[in-house]
């Protein structure tokens, strides 16, 4: 069969992938730069294509709680928003993590804090990778660097969410969401039947038959010792995720003397910078974390033995750089370069930063 290629925006790719992966529901609220997700879904009428439910909620708070309700029935549900809206969802995300429910959340990050700007940024790294809401929990965080990955990570994200009964976040930004690239579209997956949902998610609140105890979805436990045991169970789950699910891409690292660590659109900007640096004879490679939680610490730790230094490039004032420093454990210098507030670093600036902060420093 010939593969189907389309030119799509990242936001549209997420929406199409949701339909094709057999998702049961999308709930969202408009916000720039990701409103195309719900606009595309509404134009596609997935209720006619697959029976998927799509609803524009009255707020992000409502949307994430619709996700809670859907996920607690074992349904495949996703939402998307951009930074201010994701902040609003944090209460719900914490409850979803606390109730061990699977779901997919896409954050098309814009500059903050507050209302900030609508231009691209990567300033929600801490929020995404360290929990975000209250309590001790983690999301699995996937960082797409292309429109194809926006598409692919929807299905991968749902798989991880159901495998670990944990919320998964796709951490994109205004560049990845707004740009169009070539996308290879996969086949339409059939949505699970109710029987299949019950089989896959026997914990779901789908109605109590006489054959099992009732299912209760809650994140409440008033007995401290039991709550502690639950927290430790989560830790075990996160440890397993760290062990099995780390993903990253190495670009020209084999002979590299300097490493740029960058994810998402920053990795794309850095690839251009790498070409410029190599043209000057400076052997530069890129480590592109694809999962931000779990973070690819081991590969950075190992690389530190044979390279001269690391530069992280982020559209933030320096967030991922902390994880890179932890990974490298002071074996080699680690510096940060970033532009913020919706300003995008140019490849030339990245070249300068590496030359001045790492080579010259």
């Amino acid at each position: 069969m010939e593969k189907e290629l389309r030119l799509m925006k990242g936001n549209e790719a997420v929406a199409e992938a949701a339909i094709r992966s057999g998702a049961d529901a999308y709930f969202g609220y408009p916000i720039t730069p990701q409103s195309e997700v719900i606009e595309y879904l509404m134009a596609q009428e997935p209720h006619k294509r697959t029976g998927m439910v799509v609803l524009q909620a009255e707020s992000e708070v409502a949307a994430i709680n619709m996700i809670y309700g859907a996920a607690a029935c074992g349904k495949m549900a996703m939402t998307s928003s951009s930074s201010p809206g994701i902040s609003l969802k944090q209460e719900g995300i914490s409850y979803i993590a606390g109730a061990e429910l699977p779901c997919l959340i896409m954050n098309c990050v814009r500059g903050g804090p507050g209302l900030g700007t609508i231009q691209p940024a990567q300033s929600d790294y801490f929020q995404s990778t360290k929990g975000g809401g209250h309590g001790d929990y983690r999301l699995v965080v996937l960082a797409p660097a292309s429109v194809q990955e926006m598409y692919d990570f929807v299905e991968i994200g749902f798989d991880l969410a159901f495998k670990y009964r944990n919320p998964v976040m796709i951490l994109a930004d205004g560049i990845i969401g707004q740009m169009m690239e070539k996308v290879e579209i996969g086949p339409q997956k059939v949505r699970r039947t109710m029987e299949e949902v019950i089989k896959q998610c026997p914990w779901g609140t789908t109605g109590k038959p006489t054959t099992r105890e009732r299912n209760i979805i809650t994140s409440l436990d008033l007995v401290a010792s039991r709550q502690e045991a639950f927290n430790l169970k989560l830790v075990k789950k996160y440890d397993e995720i760290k062990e099995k699910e780390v993903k990253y891409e190495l670009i020209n690292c084999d002979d590299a003397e300097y490493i740029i660590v960058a994810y998402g659109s920053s990795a794309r900007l850095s690839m251009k910078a790498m070409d410029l640096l190599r043209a000057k004879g400076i052997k530069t490679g890129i480590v592109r974390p694809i999962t931000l939680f779990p973070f690819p610490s081991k590969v950075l730790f190992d690389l530190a033995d044979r390279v001269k230094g690391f530069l992280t490039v982020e559209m933030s004032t320096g967030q991922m750089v902390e994880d890179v420093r932890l990974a490298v454990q002071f074996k080699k210098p680690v510096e940060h370069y970033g532009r913020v507030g919706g300003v995008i670093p140019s490849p030339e600036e990245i070249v300068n930063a590496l030359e001045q902060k790492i080579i010259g420093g």
Partner: protein
Amino acid sequence: MTEEIIIAGFGGQGVLSMGKILAYSGLMQGQEVSWMPSYGPEMRGGTSNVTVIISDERISSPILTKYDTAIILNQQSLDKFECMVKPGGTLLYDPNGITRHPERKDISIYKVAATQKATEMGAVKVFNMMVLGSYLKIKPIVKMENVIKGLKKSIPARNHHLIPMNEQAIEIGMKEVQQV
């Protein structure tokens, strides 16, 4: 081959759709493409631009500070992007409403009076296709058959009867373009 292009003008001039058709044409002939628009509160008029990259290789940054070609449709964009064309690069512009013309000596400059021509013909809607035609005359990076395929993919099926008109506009643009 990698061609890095900026197309810039007013919102409503069809800048984004011209870029999309170009990118789709590249895709139809098996190349890597990216299309990155400026975005903002879209309702306020103002300027609009899009970076299109067509390449035989994986595309690195979709956002650039230097371009092989700049396609310029208003004065603000000319002022902003003329200096960002790589030495030896190409600048194509529509002189309509331009009071300060391009001045660089180290790039090839072309112009096409597409606004005027399109108005005369009562075909303002395909103004952007004329400009695209001029560009393709200067840099035939995509084959005409692929442009037609790109058009079919970019415009909704209900408007497919307009494709011959678009094709014609591309041909006119090819004829009208002049080197400065």
